[in-house]
């Protein structure tokens, strides 16, 4: 009896070691994946809201906390929106990204849309006055800031023109 018991104990230890070892390897793999997981691809992700630039600005000016609750995500993966509006200005930021401001004449604020290296060319082809729909991720809302002395625009980034 004894040798058999010893055998089975050895076997149990082997099996346990195998399971624990496998678990550790799996945990390391999952950990490494999570640690290095890629950024969300905004342009490939589904659109959460489709809205006009004026409606989005009015939503923020009317009730900023409700708008933040609706559009912002706790981990920064905020809502992906498709905004339609009139191209009011074209600028370039310090990362050489094209910035298109969608704003109607007479509106208090607009939606500032920052493109990226892969989509800058699309923004360059837009002309002031043109009606366009732009998809991007929302970063912050419109509000009047007394210290800046102007209305901040809604900011969306990782933009591309929606065809």
């Amino acid at each position, binding site marked *: 009896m004894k040798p058999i018991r010893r055998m089975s104990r050895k076997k149990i230890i082997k099996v346990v070691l195998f399971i624990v070892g496998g678990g550790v390897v799996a945990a390391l793999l999952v950990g490494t994946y*999570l640690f290095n997981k890629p950024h969300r691809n905004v342009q490939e992700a589904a659109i959460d809201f489709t809205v006009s630039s004026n409606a989005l600005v009015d939503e923020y000016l009317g009730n900023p906390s409700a708008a933040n609750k609706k559009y*912002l995500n*706790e981990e920064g993966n905020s809502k992906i929106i498709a905004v339609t509006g009139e191209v009011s200005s074209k*600028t370039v930021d*310090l990362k050489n990204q094209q910035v298109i401001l969608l704003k109607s004449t007479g509106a208090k604020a607009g939606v500032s849309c920052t493109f990226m290296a892969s989509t800058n060319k699309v923004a360059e082809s837009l002309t002031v006055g043109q009606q366009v729909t732009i998809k991007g991720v929302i*970063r912050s809302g419109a509000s009047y*800031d007394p210290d*800046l002395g102007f209305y*901040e625009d809604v*900011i969306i980034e990782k933009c591309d023109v929606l065809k």
Partner: protein
Amino acid sequence: MKKLIYLIFVPAVFFVLAAFRPIAGKLVSKNAHISFFSHTTLEDITANNYKAMSTLETTTGNVAFVVPMQSFEFEKALMQEHFNSKKFLDTKAFPKAKFTGKITNLNAVDFTKDGSYEATVQGELTIKDTTKPIQGTATITIKGNALTGQTKLKLVLADYGITFKKGKPSTNLAKEIEVTVLAEYHPE
């Protein structure tokens, strides 16, 4: 005759002043760059934000910055998520950080002349719901109709209620981080 001189002379003066109008009044920067850097022996962490807004009033020396917090981008997606989460900056509840202050040695900056000037800036910085006094020096560079402001400062995270006793952040994140600001201003 006197009238005629006025008629010619006054518009001429205005014309000359307008042509050589120095950069003055309220200046605006809508796409300022703010980055921060954290160094520990275990890890270096950098984040960049190109969406800060700022104003600089040359007559009063008033300076303001508004920073949309979710625009900070990290190399690693997980770090960006941690940065935004409730444990760190809680950007859903506090989407914007803000600095308001003043250039205290306005005499040292000649806004009418091209050149580089050292400005002392003093004010208050609000991150999350904590406001603290802060001061530093900024380099103001004037070239033609463009003004650039640049500064580097240190922030102690604990001052703004960002502390960690356990886990990776307590070992891999510096207690004091370096913040770099670059803003290009244009007349409003």
